[in-house]
């Protein structure tokens, strides 16, 4: 137990003290604060850059009666665009747009059916907001005009536009309401990403650690004092504890960041991420699945890391494992829109996918309790099995040197471990 604690502490402290770890954590915390304040920052930047020049929209009104109405609509919508009625003709103005002398040009005319025909000219190819707003404005102008023509009263117009009362309601027992789903989605999305990232990050850290110890031969000293099995699990737990600490730091700073920005946007973000209600269960599930996923993949990574004798070969040997995590991630991502799909359900019980896919289902659906419990059971069993198997490979693997970098060496390692 003494040696176990020593290795545990060594893995935790030395890794935690490395510059790369501290810097990564720092950057991630900074990113969280940046994200939380993003709307404020964008607002500030916009204020600085856009205050001095409002955009000007030049209008050629062939009908001679639409411009005032448009101006009125723009005033109501409080748009940051100045409208100028231009006496010049259309072609000259188009040329000016081309030469970048003016920003944008709008032509207005009424056709024979007294409907509005309008074209928007600009040098920007990717512009959506302003043209859409103009279209909306013109639409209401036209509606008003037609209403006058047809001598409809305001109320009559209103009735014409009464919207349909349409709601979706799923009768599946496992579904949450649409509103709940939208709330859950944000939180699940963020946590899923975190689990995915953490599992990949920490398990490759384990594999690299093991390979480093092997290539530097410090392994021979370690395992002549501690049994390889103890060493493996002390290492996995040590790095796992470090992972939890990092996650806790990130979680705390995310909470702090959102709390301190205390604006409407922050309130919005809070409710978007579902923190305000029912977030707790999801977060607890996230921690459980993070831990299970970590132990599963870390044990696997330790096993794989013990097969290679050079740090350079680590990436190659953990590639199959990385693929498993990526597949799990894509499955979960594909299910985020519709977590009720059959294949999502089945894959959520496959232990290598459970941490992400079952977490998605648990976060998004009202599952009967036995489903997550069963998947957790399967995972625990797999972790146990993998730990047992991993320890056997590890025992031999750590003594194996030479150009070993394929999964075929697992057999060789088990053989050597027995001897």
């Amino acid at each position: 137990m003494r040696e176990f604690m020593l290795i545990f502490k060594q893995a935790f402290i030395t890794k935690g003290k490395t510059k790369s770890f501290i810097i990564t954590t720092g950057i991630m915390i900074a990113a969280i604060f940046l994200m939380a304040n993003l709307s404020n920052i964008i607002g500030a930047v916009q204020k600085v850059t856009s205050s001095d020049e409002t955009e000007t929209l030049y209008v050629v009104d062939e009908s001679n009666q639409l411009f005032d109405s448009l101006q009125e609509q723009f005033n109501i919508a409080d748009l940051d665009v100045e409208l100028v009625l231009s006496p010049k003709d259309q072609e000259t103005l188009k040329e000016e747009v081309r030469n970048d002398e003016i920003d944008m040009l709008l032509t207005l005319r009424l056709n024979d059916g007294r409907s509005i025909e309008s074209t928007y000219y600009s040098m920007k190819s990717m512009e959506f907001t302003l043209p859409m707003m103009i279209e909306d404005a013109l639409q209401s102008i036209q509606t008003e005009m037609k209403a006058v023509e047809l001598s409809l009263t305001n109320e009559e117009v209103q009735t014409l536009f009464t919207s349909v009362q349409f709601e979706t309601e799923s009768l599946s027992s496992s579904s949450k309401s649409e509103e709940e789903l939208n709330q859950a989605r944000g939180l699940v999305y963020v946590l899923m990403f975190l689990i995915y990232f953490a599992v990949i990050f920490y398990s490759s850290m384990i594999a690299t650690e093991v390979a480093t110890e092997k290539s530097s031969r410090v392994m021979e000293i370690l395992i002549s004092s501690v049994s390889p099995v103890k060493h493996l699990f002390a290492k996995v737990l040590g790095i796992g504890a470090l992972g939890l600490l990092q996650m806790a730091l990130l979680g705390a700073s995310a909470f702090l960041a959102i709390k301190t920005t205390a604006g409407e946007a922050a309130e919005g973000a809070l409710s978007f991420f579902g923190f305000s209600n029912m977030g707790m269960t999801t977060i607890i599930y996230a921690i459980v699945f993070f831990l299970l996923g970590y132990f599963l993949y870390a044990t696997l990574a330790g096993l794989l890391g013990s097969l290679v004798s050079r740090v350079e070969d680590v990436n190659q040997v953990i590639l199959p494992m990385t693929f498993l995590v990526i597949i799990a991630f894509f499955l979960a991502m594909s299910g985020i829109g519709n977590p009720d799909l059959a294949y999502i359900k089945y894959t959520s019980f496959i232990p290598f996918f459970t941490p992400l896919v079952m977490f998605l289902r648990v976060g998004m659906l009202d599952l009967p309790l036995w489903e997550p419990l069963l998947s957790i059971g399967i995972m625990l069993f797999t972790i146990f099995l993998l730990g047992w198997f991993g320890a056997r490979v590890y025992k031999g693997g750590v003594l194996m040197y030479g150009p070993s970098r394929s999964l075929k060496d697992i057999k060789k390692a088990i053989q050597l471990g027995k001897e």
Partner: protein
Amino acid sequence: MSLQLENVTKRFGDFTAVDQLNLSIEQGTMYGFLGANGAGKTTTFRMILGLLNANEGKITWNQKRISYATSPEIGYLPEERGLYPKMKVAEQLIFLGQLRGMSKSASKRAASEWLEKMEVSHYETKKVEELSKGNQQKIQVIASLMHQPKLLILDEPFSGLDPVNVEMLKNAILEFRNNGATILFSSHRMDHVEELCEQLSIIHQGKQVVSGSLREVKRSFGRQNVRIHSEYDLASLASIEGVTNVQQSIEGAIYQVETEEVAHELLATALQLGPIRHFAIEEPSLQDIFIEKVGNVHA
């Protein structure tokens, strides 16, 4: 306090790495373990450390099997550097000392004492990878003996060291032995073994080809070297019966002879050719024995 290996055999599949090896190392002695690359030295060390199990035979340390319980009594220096490259020297030594059963404070004290002794205390806060190979080797040696092991296993302890550091290390190891430790070490450098070891073994492809005390080994080799310096051409001496090998040198030649009689005959014949300036009967060097027994020039 002795280390005993009796008829130890280790096979990997069809390949026999160590074949019927017998070693007996008394407390307070130093044992040299010689062999070409791949002869089975590291495998033997791993078996002694309990990392591998022997297929046949028995390994005991003070009549006990070696296990993790005995690990604080054992110190091991692996062939290549066995240190964390990114960890600081002092931290690393303290960690490894604790791993071998020392308390944290004792480990701290021993680390600084040894760093002082090896004249590397100014590297205390440096990372291992920043040190030169020779200094890394010193740290490595400290790591293997700072916990005062009773049995010290050194795999190529002198590799990568300059002559000054080799001397320093030799003295440290000798002092350690004089305090009662049992030391087993392997080396390619015959002169180190000749200088340090009471007993030795040469193994070749897993088989023990020579073993015993240095004197026994040299006696039983059954050959001596005769060194003759002369200004005359001594080539004809090579044809005398009993001369097994001739090596020309600038001043004359060295003849390997089977018996002392042959040496006398050589002297008589040489004197007939003309006056000689130097004549000596020398013991065979370990180098000669090694090359003869192992049959290649890996030494």
